[in-house]
């Protein structure tokens, strides 16, 4: 059927000329400009980019991937997930397990086992850790665990036609249950301390500037790749069905489509994106703990998307940068006012900016156009 469609409407190019120029500029910034400003420009120079700034931007780019994933499921399909923090954390834990094994005997207890296991007096690795010394296997887990969980959970939820707020609430319950589970020491993932004190990845020390920069570049390229992929999905016929489901699900059903497959596939894809973001996040930030699974973390992903502008793809990326940039500024300058600001942002965006920053920008540019015409 899709073959028929493509012959009827000639394939639109993914981006316009301006768009490709923007993507190229982003790639150049991530791959060339930031490494040069950070590594080659001497410290103290006006153009030097500090390590702190690099790690902050790297962290926010991981968040931006999550916001993109949220936009696909919420902005384009109309399903608000309060479980994306869980998928993010699961990806992070998958990477964290490998990083814990990479510590080797350099931990505080000089044991083959990770420190927290020695502390709990365990003699061997739990079953979940069987292949944790293999990078390839753990990276497969980063994709498979969030993906499978989302697939199974989503299948049952969408099959029973749970939607809207109900779906949001049961995803929140799922995340809450997982958080309680990971807080237990007996679960085998470090309890409430989680994983930290990582030393190296693929036998290369993490503290080395080149390693950090490699991770940064990888994250940036992943973000750009995810953006292009999302762009392609949204522009395809599949993406149009998703938007139709968002706007009138029953009508989509009456015209002969089965929303289950569409919803389930985008939901699973979105979860995997979050998992990958989590795996990129952990080596850069150096810690993962069950706090990432709290209800607040998942809702914040939604607010990044909403602030930037739902159902636009550049919006969630801008939103993630804006909210998290504001967060790091507030927590340094006025720590006690951060929650006031965040709370006000939640209220203001839902009341006054339903289309987010991008909508605001569009409004101004169209107003400017009118003025020039007049």
């Amino acid at each position: 059927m899709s073959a028929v469609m493509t012959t009827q409407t000639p394939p639109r190019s993914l981006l316009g000329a301006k768009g490709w120029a923007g993507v190229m500029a982003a790639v150049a910034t991530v791959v060339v400009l930031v490494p040069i400003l950070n590594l080659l420009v001497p410290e103290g120079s006006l153009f030097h980019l500090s390590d702190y700034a690099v790690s902050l931007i790297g962290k926010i780019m991981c968040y931006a991937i999550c916001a993109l994933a949220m936009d696909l499921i919420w902005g384009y399909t109309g399903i608000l997930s309060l479980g994306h923090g869980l998928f993010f954390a699961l990806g992070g834990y998958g990477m964290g397990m490998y990083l814990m094994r990479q510590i080797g005997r350099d931990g505080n207890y000089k044991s083959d086992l990770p420190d927290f296991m020695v502390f709990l007096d365990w003699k061997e690795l739990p079953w979940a850790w069987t292949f944790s010394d293999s990078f390839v296997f753990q990276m497969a887990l980063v994709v498979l665990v969030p993906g499978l969980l989302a697939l199974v959970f989503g299948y049952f939820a969408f099959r029973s036609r749970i939607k809207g707020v109900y779906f949001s609430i049961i995803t929140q319950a799922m995340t809450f249950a997982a958080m309680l589970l990971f807080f237990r020491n007996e679960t085998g993932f470090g309890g409430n301390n989680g994983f930290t004190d990582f030393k190296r990845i693929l036998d290369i020390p993490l503290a080395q500037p080149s390693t950090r920069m490699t991770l940064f570049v990888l994250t940036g390229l992943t973000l750009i790749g995810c953006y292009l992929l999302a762009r392609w999905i949204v522009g395809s016929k599949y993406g149009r069905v998703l938007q139709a489901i968002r706007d009138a699900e029953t009508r989509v059903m009456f015209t002969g489509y089965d929303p289950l497959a569409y919803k389930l596939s985008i939901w699973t894809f979105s979860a995997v994106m979050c998992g990958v973001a989590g795996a990129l996040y952990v080596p850069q930030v150096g810690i993962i703990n069950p706090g990432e699974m709290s209800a607040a973390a998942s809702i914040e992903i939604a607010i990044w998307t909403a602030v930037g502008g739902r159902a636009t793809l550049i919006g969630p990326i801008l939103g993630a940068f804006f909210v998290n940039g504001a967060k790091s500024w507030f927590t340094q300058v006025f720590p006690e006012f951060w929650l006031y600001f965040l709370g006000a942002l939640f209220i203001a965006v839902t009341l006054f900016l339903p289309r987010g920053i991008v909508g605001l920008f569009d409004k101004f540019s169209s107003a400017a156009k009118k003025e020039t015409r007049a």
Partner: protein
Amino acid sequence: MALLASVAHALTPDQAAAIAIGDTDARIAALNRSAADADPELIPFVRALLDGEVKTADGKVYVVQGDKTAPDTAEDVINNNRMRGALEAALGALKLVSPDVQVRTEALDELRKQSLEEAQLPLIEKAYAAETDAALKARLELMRATILITATDPAKRLAAAQSLAGSSEPAVKSLIQERLAPGAETDNAVRGALMTAQAAVEGRLAWGERLGVVFTGVSLGSILLLVALGLAITYGLMGVINMAHGELMMIGAYATYLVQDLFRQVLPGLFDWYIVLAIPASFAVAALVGAVLERTVIRWLYGRPLETLLATWGISLVLMQGVRTLFGAQNVAVENPSWLSGGVQVMSNLILPYNRLAIIAFAFLVLGGVTLMINRTRLGLFVRGVTQNRRMAACVGINTARIDTYAFSLGAGIAGLAGCALSQVGNVGPDLGQSYIVDAFMVVVTGGVGQLAGTVYAALGLGLLNKFLEGFAGAVLAKIMVLVCIVVFIQKRPQGLFAMKGRSAEA
């Protein structure tokens, strides 16, 4: 003879001296010898010893009480902890033979708390022989058995084991377990009797445990009911996802804290009754905040539940941080009124705390009030009308915007009441609401939207299920299992226990 005058006449000076002078072992032996005679006149002397009113000089004993004095050379009798323990045990044992039933009962209660020693056996035997009250005699027999279970004569041990079977004390259960440990009891007949006794005691204790699980389950259920009742109105009837519901509870709890503080400073005499003012205060404050929220934020978001979810989450952040700014991030102390502390002992291993009982009663009172309000008052009629058909309700002249405000602030006020109740059993801090919000939504979702009855069944059911699973799996796993159960249940019945019947294609 001043000496004889100051000491009880039935106690010879030699006996008194033996108890007061010498090394601890000899004194305890002398004490138990004298106590075995079950002479009630020994009581004042033992009391005086415990109160440090006995002095000795040259082998003579003086009791220094009131105008009675001792020679200047007299020294205080020093009682170490072991001696004090023996004295207290002897005092308790002596009371056992008092002619007053009340005193004997109290003495038995006292004696139960201490570990009994072989040396006290003669006295208990004596009390047992003299006891006329059947209930007290049974208890004495048990006590006698706990001592005799280690006797050297197998026949005595056998008899003791048989009488232990009548006990329902957790202490007896562990005593039997101790005796059944390998090497402790060698006689096979006695072992057999002990096993029978163990089964009997455990069976009786198991009932206490089972009832305990039911009680804590109902108690948790009543808390969940209070927490979810407000949500059942805002979410169930109005379709508003109020993520700030937990923070409205927190506001109720802080209102209780302020009222309590006010009473402590202004009316310390009436402190026990601060709760009477705290209940309406917590309702009013939370309802007021709710009304303001509805007027300023929520009314713009009707029909857009996902947006309401985000906006109310933002409100909850602001409220939490506001409370932190005003009261500090630490928990504040809310003291129970004295009539709510303590509990009623139903069985040896089952105590029902008064504050839990009060919350169960309170939850059902609030439930009754809300039911009456929804079903019997004009406001309730309007709320139901607006819920069922907003435009029709507007057409017949109902000011729907005002009804929305009233209904939302009613839900908020009930959240405030829940906060007031929670302040009596848990910590009051800025995070109070966060720990209950997920549970509250689970209750409403399980119960079914738009039905108060569903909320009641779901709250009690989830409370009982949670406590029941806790017995097997521990608190955290039980909670996880309950959440998984709910998620599975929602798959089966997406509309909850009690679904609103309708013919709309949209669920």
